[in-house]
């Protein structure tokens, strides 16, 4: 074991964690901090369910070590507060079925707008390709993002 103290800001709140070096950010969020909004899908960086923002950039938390978040700011779906325009658009457009991939989809969609990648539906689809939805809600996800983008 190699326990390390990690000082990080999660959803605007400073947190100090003592974690083993091999603990992922995803597991630290869910199991140590009780922030279970971030979902574990494939756990191998292939599905995007665990997407969070690290210093404002979207990453997959399953392949991020918790120690790599030291000194950095993490945003999870809980930090969006439930009333974020993207969350409301997802609800309005029925952009999910089972909802398991939705936190990752929403965080990816918020980042996509910051990146200026919502110019066309084709661009939205390409830059949302890191988030899989097994229910196939893709058309409604694109519609929700399009609406928030003001197109």
């Amino acid at each position, binding site marked *: 074991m190699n326990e*390390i103290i990690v000082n990080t800001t999660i959803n605007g709140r400073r947190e100090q964690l003592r974690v083993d070096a*091999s603990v992922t950010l995803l597991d630290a969020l869910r199991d140590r901090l009780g922030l279970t909004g971030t979902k574990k899908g494939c756990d*191998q*960086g292939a599905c995007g369910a665990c997407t969070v923002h690290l210093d404002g950039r979207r990453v997959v938390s399953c*392949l991020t070590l918790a120690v790599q978040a*030291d000194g950095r700011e993490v945003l999870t779906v809980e930090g969006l507060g439930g009333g974020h325009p993207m969350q409301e658009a997802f609800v309005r457009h029925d952009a999910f079925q089972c909802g398991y991939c939705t936190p990752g989809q929403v965080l990816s969609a918020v980042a996509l707008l910051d990146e200026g990648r919502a110019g066309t539906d084709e661009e939205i689809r390409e830059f949302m390709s890191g988030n899989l939805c097994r229910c196939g809600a893709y058309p409604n996800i694109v519609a929700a993002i399009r609406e928030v983008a003001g197109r």
Partner: protein
Amino acid sequence: MTFTYTRATSQAAAIAEVSADPKAAFLAGGTTQVDLALKDGVIDPRRLVDISRLPMAGITVDGDALRVGATTTMAEMAADERVGRLLPFVREALLLGASPQLRNMATIGGNLLQRTRCRYFRDLAEARCNKRTPGTGCAAVEGVARMHAILGASPSCIALHASDLAVPLTALGSIVHLRSGGGPRTVPLTEFYRLPGEAPDRENVLWHGELITDVEIPLPPTRARTTYIKVRDRSSYEFALTSAAVATVVEAGFVVSARIALGGVGTIPWRAWEAEDVLRDAPVNDESFRAAANAAIHRPFTVPGTEFKVELAKRTLVRALRITTGLVAEPTS
């Protein structure tokens, strides 16, 4: 599976720390390493030395080349104005690889060192893998193959090098800058990777503890036109079945020069020297392009699952050449 973690305070310290411990490794973006160590258990580093916060990232113009710091992320490189303007097909390759999340994490040095996607290599339930455990055989040669190599392959290993970025970098004759305890050295990317031969576990010329510090990318002539064409099973977020990176200069209907590398087909990013020779001073037409493609896919090593790649790779190259030489106006993929 556990390891110790340290955050390097300098390049020299990182190199010294990894060099001193045979079970130590550098950690940058982690997208390959965390996956293979923690999830698949295929690699077993006991000590990870995090270099991601060292001041190594960034892109500079260095004479007729672009120099990219090894810890620059794929997203940062793709967003760089000079990359888009001077190396458009490098930008295309970056944006056709992985997903936006992974591109925010993965570094350029790590991209070059990414491990193969061969399912047998990544599955400990399969005992036969010469790359993972030398001398055990190759399950892919006898098993189900599709995302595997047909060039540079042998009965001992058909594992594919899956990088998109490395393909245009190989076409341009990029140079990898390395640093070890013994000092710095440079290696052309075309000599950086080893063919599997009898030792598929030795993938490149790096010494233990040697660090990639920069990648130097020579700029193509300003009148060159370039493209990166990637063919895959899904329209996005998928590794290449075949790909081609091409930079050509055309004058009065003839090819003056061509730089070509292929992806999705080689155990290493595949520079198609023979195709470049065929195209020199050749007329811009499909006969020339087909001849170049035949020269590029010379004596492939196929298994039943990969036979389709022979023709697909040729057509991918022909399409790329049609685009850069102006024979067709736009990519049709």
